[in-house]
């Protein structure tokens, strides 16, 4: 157990986070002014398509951004402490101890030359003052917790001897061995088959209730989000475009992008002749449109969309970065508003989500 003082308020607060990549071709604003928070024990789903910045957001929380990338602005508060202000050595204690992370591809995240047990035990010893023997026992215990049958034998095996699902369990066992407050899971089941995915999601659900652990679940799979998340953040081109509790996002989405996403997936329980599509593709991060980043693909496009839309509260706890009114109608400034008038209106409508 981590001996941090119980901080009142959310476990993790991300405020105005900007992570940019300074490439030869220009500046890629991978994460551009992202704000959200996760409470203790809560599961937050972060959804979006490739390149929307969801993974970079999580790597920024862990401060694992390499050149040419840099966190250029914002705060990442964990239990009220700013992680971005920490020294590298202190940050190392945060990683694994308070925040753990699991990745999409378990094979590349595990060291092929050490046994699974060794790798988990190493993580335990890094973060707690225990003997080698105790760490090994803890490793086996954790492997049992995540549902690895015959954990004793498996602990002595190398990653290549395990199946993909088993490897992901080992990753989870390792991530959880230090009892973190927050687990960041970046596409944890994307590389797995559905029946194995169901097993892993079950393990995560179990552990969440037992350990009161918060989870930041990053995925492109809306089904996984619907099943796992309490609250959902939808990202598009580096920005949060919608945020609400899971039922609201799926039941009464406000942002046209969210609506489009939900309509474009084929469903098992329905039969449609044609799928709805979101036309076009995600804009190049080097050539983003002015104003609303989604406007070129949006069926509701108005002239006012040439001005950056407000981030408004469209319902209790429901936020959307769009000019449409909460009821989905033309904004009060008028669909044709431009320039200063539109900018002033956007500022007025935008809520501070701190």
């Amino acid at each position, binding site marked *: 157990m981590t001996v941090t003082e119980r901080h009142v308020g959310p476990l993790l607060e991300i405020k105005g986070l900007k992570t940019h990549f300074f490439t030869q071709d220009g500046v890629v604003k991978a994460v551009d002014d992202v704000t959200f928070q996760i409470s203790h024990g809560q599961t937050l789903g972060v959804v979006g398509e490739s390149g929307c910045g969801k993974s970079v957001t999580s790597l920024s929380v862990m401060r694992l951004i390499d050149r040419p990338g840099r966190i250029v602005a914002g705060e990442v508060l964990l239990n009220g402490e700013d992680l971005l202000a920490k020294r590298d050595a202190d940050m190392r204690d945060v990683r694994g101890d308070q925040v753990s992370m699991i990745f999409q591809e378990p094979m590349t995240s595990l060291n092929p030359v050490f046994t699974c047990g060794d790798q988990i035990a190493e993580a335990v010893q890094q973060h707690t003052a225990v003997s080698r023997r105790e760490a090994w026992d803890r490793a086996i215990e954790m492997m049992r917790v995540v549902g690895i049958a015959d954990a004793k034998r498996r602990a002595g095996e190398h990653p290549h001897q395990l199946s993909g699902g088993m490897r992901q369990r080992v990753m989870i066992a390792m991530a959880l061995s230090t009892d973190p407050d927050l687990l960041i899971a970046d596409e944890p089941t994307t590389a797995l088959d*559905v029946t*194995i995915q*169901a097993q892993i999601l*079950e393990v995560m659900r179990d552990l969440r209730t037992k350990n009161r652990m918060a989870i930041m679940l990053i995925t492109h799979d*809306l089904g996984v989000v619907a099943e796992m998340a309490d609250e959902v953040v939808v990202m598009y081109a580096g920005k949060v475009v919608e945020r609400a509790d899971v039922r609201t996002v*799926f039941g009464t989405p406000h942002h046209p992008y969210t609506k489009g996403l939900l309509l474009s997936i084929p469903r*098992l329980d329905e039969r449609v002749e044609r799928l709805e599509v*979101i036309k076009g593709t995600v804009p190049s991060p080097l050539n983003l449109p002015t104003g609303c980043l989604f406007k070129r693909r949006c069926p509701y496009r108005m002239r006012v969309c040439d001005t950056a839309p407000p981030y408004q509260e469209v319902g209790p706890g429901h936020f959307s970065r769009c000019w449409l009114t909460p009821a989905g109608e033309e904004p009060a400034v008028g669909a044709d508003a431009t320039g200063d008038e539109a900018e002033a209106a956007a500022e007025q409508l935008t809520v501070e989500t701190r």
Partner: protein
Amino acid sequence: MTERPISEPTSAAQATTEGSMTSGGQTSAQRTAARGGAGAGAGPLLEVNDLVKHFDIRGGLLGISKLGAVRAVDGVSFSVNEGETLGLVGESGCGKTTLGKVILRLIPPTAGRVNFEGKSLFDLSSRELKAARRDIQVVFQDPYASLNPRMSVGEIVGEGLYVHGMTNKKEREAAVRDLLKRVGLNQAHIHRYPHEFSGGQRQRIGIARALALRPKFIVCDEPVSALDVSIQSQVLNLLSDLQDEFQLTYLFIAHNLAVVKHLSTRVGVMYLGKLVELSDADELYRSPAHPYTKALLSAIPVPDPTVRRERIVLKGDLPSPANPPSGCRFHTRCPMAQEICKTEEPPLRDVGGGHMSACHFAEEVTPLEIRRPVGVPA
């Protein structure tokens, strides 16, 4: 003949190739007859009969002694009717991709037969095979790996046309431009290279390439699984539009049951090299007749947080296809398994109305329980 050519250049090419084929043995009359009959839209276009594909595991001192075999496809039979889409689902290692490759004759079979328009694909001479390949095309999963990075779009899409006799550059370019338009790409991009396109656009290039020779049958192997959701629906719609436009027949292989069900007329479910269930797509979802299908359905997360479903979490991992379990291959993970399942392999049988299942207890498989909150329409 009328449905095949879409523009002058194509029909010209056709004339050339068919001319050469006549001299090569297969009569053009045969082909025409087959095509003429196809218009009726009935009868199987493709018949797969007890197809087996084993990959030998070799080892020993010289690496030549046979240690065993991976039984990737192990006795699969089904047929695909003219104009329909047959979906094939299953998890990694179930043999669905291998099956597709054998049908395409990209790899030789171990045993079994595949008939296309009543003619065995495995008994063709190389000349006949070349002709058959015009009719059977493929769209691959990975749009990054399946396009040659050193060839322009025009060369990629036009290569098949060239090989099959359209040697006039101008004609070919016109045909390629037409194809690009049909798959929703900008015709002006004909001289661009694959790296200049996004994943979805690359998949469209792959589809244009498959269409170039006006095939009758296309094997789509996971054509949308590498794409983002918003792009996935665009490509799925394109595939169904093209099917209507060119009267195509698809074998649609994918692991995502929702995607397969959306596009397919009938769906086959594979497990460890065997076809375990085959039925009408909606019927499969409504009343699965194999416990594996049911587990697969229950494992797919539904993008609706208000729905509560019965969940069957299968125990353990997929057994190795090199050493499959005795009897029913699913018995090691099956929640319904009995003694008989360990010893006796259940045959694929009709459990009513053409719904095929390979389970001893197919009649006892209940539909998946789905609960919606009161007041939410189904």
